[in-house]
């Protein structure tokens, strides 16, 4: 159970710094360090077990449909990385406390750092491929935040963006690879995948899966040709670089190679791709490390180079090579973190990182100089330090490889060349910065850094020396356990020692040291050689390409999306015609087996009126008022059709909606032109008529085909259970408020949102208000005729009574919240029309927004209420009660829900219509808003 805590504690830890103020720096650092320290304690408690060969698992289902489990493991490999991440992470917290200036937000820094640490821990502990990927992408995101920490600087922003783009894309490729592996194996469980090596490698999908996973690893570990993001990530604060590029971020890539080694390695494909990529990266980056003037630039390229070396070791077909790779991961993390910290101190104390300006700093900061020199010696592979031993192992393994056949000698030769370069740039780093004459004209006068800033370096350099002197004593157990997790099958006997006798690798080491010193002495020739090549800035190239892609995408979008609604409609309709038309072509005949029902005169007359009115709406559309009248005829005929075909609820709803729609459109028409100018060319009209006819034909055919075929409906269920399960006889209403209540809740929410949207759209809307109609006749002076006013006023209580009646009986007779709400709304709107806004406003100063929102809230609360009684959301309860004098009545919670529907419909309808009406008066929404805010 303590396994998830290791991930969870740092995650919680990312919140803690945010509670502190920026001024309490010590407190901030201490509290931040607390939780990862506990996590480190838990890890160490597991260490003896893991070293003795145990593997700890923890698993919890997360999204079982996807095969994504919250599964963690600690094996030797995880342990090795956990110790590095948490150990170096704690040192970085200490270092950053003194590195950050008071202007930098410390809480934000620590929060990002802990988030990043969490995601790294997640990667190394994940026991499920998909979970690993989740944490993998989380490292990309959190490293984006860290690299862009100084977001005021354009360099930092661009560097962060590039790192995110490259590693994020790699992560997506890796996900695709994992999915393929998951399909081959049938599960995403790590152990099963690792055990299925033969199955995976025999599958034809092995090649794409391998390439995709490697793409993820290589982008993260900055392998050639994806290395270019890493030097630009140096825009980050130095503690971030020290953490990301020593123990974490870039190590995630090589971790992935080690983790997937049992499943993916061993093929010729793996051997060639991984080994050669690593080798090329190692030499390429080492060469450029030698040429950089920025201290962090040197370290960045040397990091890429060392990662190349580790990658190469994981690629080689020897088990000891894997051990050497793991060993070098540890060594590199220690000396590289130290070196980054030293560059941070130099930067901090002198104000520059330019090697050309720096010189002779050992006088002013002897301690830092000594520590940096030791770490650089380890990086160069000088004997008695840890870097020497892993480099010796590396050189040994390159000798025994069977890759490249007759050209196999190339590998050790190139590896030695890489080592030569490594010695040269290490020497340059130390010699040029700390030795030589005292530097002149530095931006600041250098002093030794505070002890607390040097302490993390001391804590890292001491193990470098100890491991260098007695490697077997310190690391055998840990490396053995890690190797066991990486190689699985019989692992080689591990002999870590300083002295292997006089042999070829020792000679190669000697050549590397001597050659490196020689190269350093002759470096001026190299610099002048390099000067003949034009300088290329990866960031510029990357941004140039990004812009080109964006430009291309924008052009493509512009071509498709040119702002013409008519064209969008056209494409939409063509797609619909094509899809439905092809479906109809597949039918053997249009008419189905059902017998046709007889016609009568009334039906024919009704149909004729509807068709004529429909056509009239379209044909007369340029005379808008006439067209609107035609539309209302269609609406009424539809309502009658519903009544004719046994749907009284629908007929009532349609009737009420028809009234409000026509009033709404009339009001809108008041503000819009009364006529549509003749614009469409003859060709366009013909085209549209043909399209419309084709569409109508297809709709009619589809409808006819549907009506004449038997249908297996699920309505039987509703009919059977309406009375017994929902307590209502009106099945339509029971479906609305009970069976499908959740749908209705969604519907009224949409209605409410639409009304609020309209309210906002009307806010501060300035419109031209015509003083006469389209024929130039002035409006009638009698705006509110007496007769209409009196009638509507006396109708109001009646209409309200009717709506209450319709509402109450809704559960058992045609009616319900929707219809009752519409009736109420219509009655109130009639009052507005008859008496005017001023008059109505005085007597009824309701705000309609709260009514609509209350309605939705009541409906939602009713649903939630059933949770209180331990039922599912929106389960309804009902019962029969008998009241004195009135008799037996039935009450259902569904009625409460229906009340919510009622209020929403009233509120929303009036919010739309009343506010639109108010536009014509001084009560326009904008003014009321101003009043409210004053």
């Amino acid at each position, binding site marked *: 159970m303590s396994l998830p805590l290791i991930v969870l504690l740092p995650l919680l830890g990312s919140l803690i710094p945010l509670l502190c103020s920026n001024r309490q720096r010590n407190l901030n650092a201490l509290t931040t360090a607390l939780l990862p320290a506990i996590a480190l304690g838990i890890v160490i408690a597991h260490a003896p077990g893991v070293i003795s060969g145990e593997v700890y698992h923890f698993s919890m289902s997360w999204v079982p449909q996807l095969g994504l489990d919250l599964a963690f493991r600690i094996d030797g490999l995880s342990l090795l990385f956990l110790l590095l991440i948490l150990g170096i992470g704690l040192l970085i917290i200490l270092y950053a406390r003194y590195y950050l200036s008071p202007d930098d937000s410390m809480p934000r820094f620590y929060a990002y750092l802990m988030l990043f640490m969490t995601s790294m821990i997640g990667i190394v502990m994940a026991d499920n491929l998909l979970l690993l990927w989740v944490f993998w992408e989380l490292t990309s995101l959190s490293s984006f935040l860290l690299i862009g920490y100084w977001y005021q600087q354009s360099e930092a922003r661009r560097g962060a963006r590039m790192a995110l783009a490259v590693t994020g894309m790699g992560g997506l490729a890796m996900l695709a690879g994992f999915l393929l592996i998951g399909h081959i194996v049938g599960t995403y469980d790590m152990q099963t995948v690792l055990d299925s090596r033969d199955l995976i490698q025999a599958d034809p999908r092995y090649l794409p899966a391998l390439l995709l996973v490697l793409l993820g690893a290589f982008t993260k570990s900055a392998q050639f040709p994806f290395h270019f993001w890493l030097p630009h990530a140096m825009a980050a604060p130095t503690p971030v670089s020290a953490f990301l590029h020593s123990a974490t971020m870039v190590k995630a890539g090589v971790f992935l190679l080690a983790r997937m080694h049992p499943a993916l390695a061993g093929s010729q494909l793996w051997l060639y791709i991984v080994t050669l990529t690593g080798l090329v990266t190692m030499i390429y980056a080492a060469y450029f490390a030698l040429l950089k003037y920025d201290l962090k630039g040197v370290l960045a390229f040397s990091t890429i180079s060392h990662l190349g070396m580790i990658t190469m070791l994981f690629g080689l077909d020897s088990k000891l090579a894997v051990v050497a790779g793991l060993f070098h991961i540890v060594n590199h993390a220690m000396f590289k973190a130290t070196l980054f910290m030293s560059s941070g101190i130099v930067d901090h104390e002198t104000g520059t990182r330019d090697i050309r300006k720096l010189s002779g700093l050992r006088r002013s900061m002897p301690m830092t100089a000594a520590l940096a020199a030791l770490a650089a010696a380890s990086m160069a592979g000088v004997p008695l330090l840890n870097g020497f031993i892993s480099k010796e192992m590396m050189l040994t393994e390159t000798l025994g490889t069977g890759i490249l056949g007759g050209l196999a000698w190339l590998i050790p030769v190139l590896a030695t060349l890489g080592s030569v370069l490594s010695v040269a740039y290490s020497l340059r780093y130390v010699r040029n910065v700390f030795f030589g004459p005292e530097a002149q004209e530095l931006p600041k006068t250098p002093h030794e850094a505070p002890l607390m800033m040097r302490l993390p370096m001391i804590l890292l350099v001491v193990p470098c020396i100890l491991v260098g002197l007695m490697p077997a004593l310190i690391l055998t157990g840990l490396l053995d356990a890690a190797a066991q997790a990486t190689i699985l099958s019989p692992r080689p006997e591990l002999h870590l020692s300083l002295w292997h006798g006089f042999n070829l690798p020792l000679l190669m080491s000697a050549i590397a040291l001597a050659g490196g010193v020689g190269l350093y002495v002759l470096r001026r020739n190299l610099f002048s050689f390099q000067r003949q090549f034009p300088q290329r800035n990866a960031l510029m190239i990357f941004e140039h390409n990004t812009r080109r892609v964006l430009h291309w995408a924008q052009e493509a979008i512009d071509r498709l999306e040119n702002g*013409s609604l008519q064209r969008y409609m056209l494409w939409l309709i063509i797609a619909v015609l094509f899809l439905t038309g092809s479906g109809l072509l597949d039918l053997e005949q249009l008419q189905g087996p059902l017998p046709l029902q007889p016609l009568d005169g009334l039906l024919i007359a009704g149909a004729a009126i509807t068709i004529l009115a429909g056509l009239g709406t379209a044909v007369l559309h340029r005379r808008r008022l006439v067209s609107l009248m035609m539309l209302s005829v269609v*609406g009424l005929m539809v309502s009658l059709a519903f009544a004719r075909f046994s749907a009284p609820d629908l007929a009532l709803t349609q009737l009420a909606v028809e009234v409000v*729609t026509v009033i709404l459109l009339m009001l809108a028409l008041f503000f819009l032109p009364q006529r549509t100018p003749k614009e469409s060319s003859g060709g*366009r009209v013909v085209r549209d008529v043909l399209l419309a006819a084709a569409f109508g034909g297809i709709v009619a055919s589809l409808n006819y085909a549907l009506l004449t075929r038997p*249908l297996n409906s699920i309505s039987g269920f509703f009919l059977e259970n309406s009375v017994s399960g929902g307590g209502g006889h009106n099945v*339509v209403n029971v479906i609305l408020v009970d069976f499908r209540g959740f749908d209705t809740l969604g519907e009224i929410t949409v209605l409410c949102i639409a009304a609020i949207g309209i309210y906002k759209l009307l806010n501060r809307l300035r419109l031209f208000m015509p003083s006469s109609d389209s024929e130039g006749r002035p409006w009638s002076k009698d705006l509110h005729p007496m007769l209409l006013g009196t009638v509507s006023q006396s109708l109001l209580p009646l209409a309200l009574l009717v709506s209450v009646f319709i509402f109450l009986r809704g559960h058992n007779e045609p009616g319900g919240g929707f219809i009752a709400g519409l009736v109420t709304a219509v009655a109130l709107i009639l009052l507005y029309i008859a008496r005017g806004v001023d008059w109505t406003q005085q007597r009824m100063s309701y705000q309609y927004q709260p009514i609509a929102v209350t309605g939705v809230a009541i409906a939602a609360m009713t649903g939630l209420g059933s949770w209180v009684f331990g039922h599912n959301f929106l389960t309804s309860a009902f019962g029969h009660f008998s009241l004195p004098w009135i008799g037996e009545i039935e009450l259902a919670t569904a009625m409460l829900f229906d009340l919510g529907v009622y209020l929403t419909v009233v509120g929303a309808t009036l919010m739309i219509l009343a506010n639109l009406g108010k536009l014509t008066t001084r009560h326009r929404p904008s003014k009321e808003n101003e009043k409210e805010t004053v």
Partner: protein
Amino acid sequence: MEALFATVTGFLAASGLYLALRGRTFPVVVGLTLLSYAVNLFLFSTGGLTTNGAAVMQDGVTHYADPLPQALVLTAIVIGFAMTAFSVILAMRVRGDQGSDQVNDQRAEESKEEKS
């Protein structure tokens, strides 16, 4: 009767679509409303056309109209109203802010789409 019903639906859909393809906002809104009538009728008819069916549950009655499409269409009618309202007010807002009631983006190419 089925053929007649289908014909009505088809004509309404065709008229609505023709209007929806116009270049000014008001006819488009009217067209969408007409289209929604057609769609509602279509949806409603998926349960079959029932003459003299019982609307509410009664003992001994077995001839009911299919309630499910009715429930769907009932909410569709109300939502359709909300949509009509929203689009017509949007049209007014566009006219208020940009002084035009054309549906096409005025910044877009003036030429073909507009004139034709």
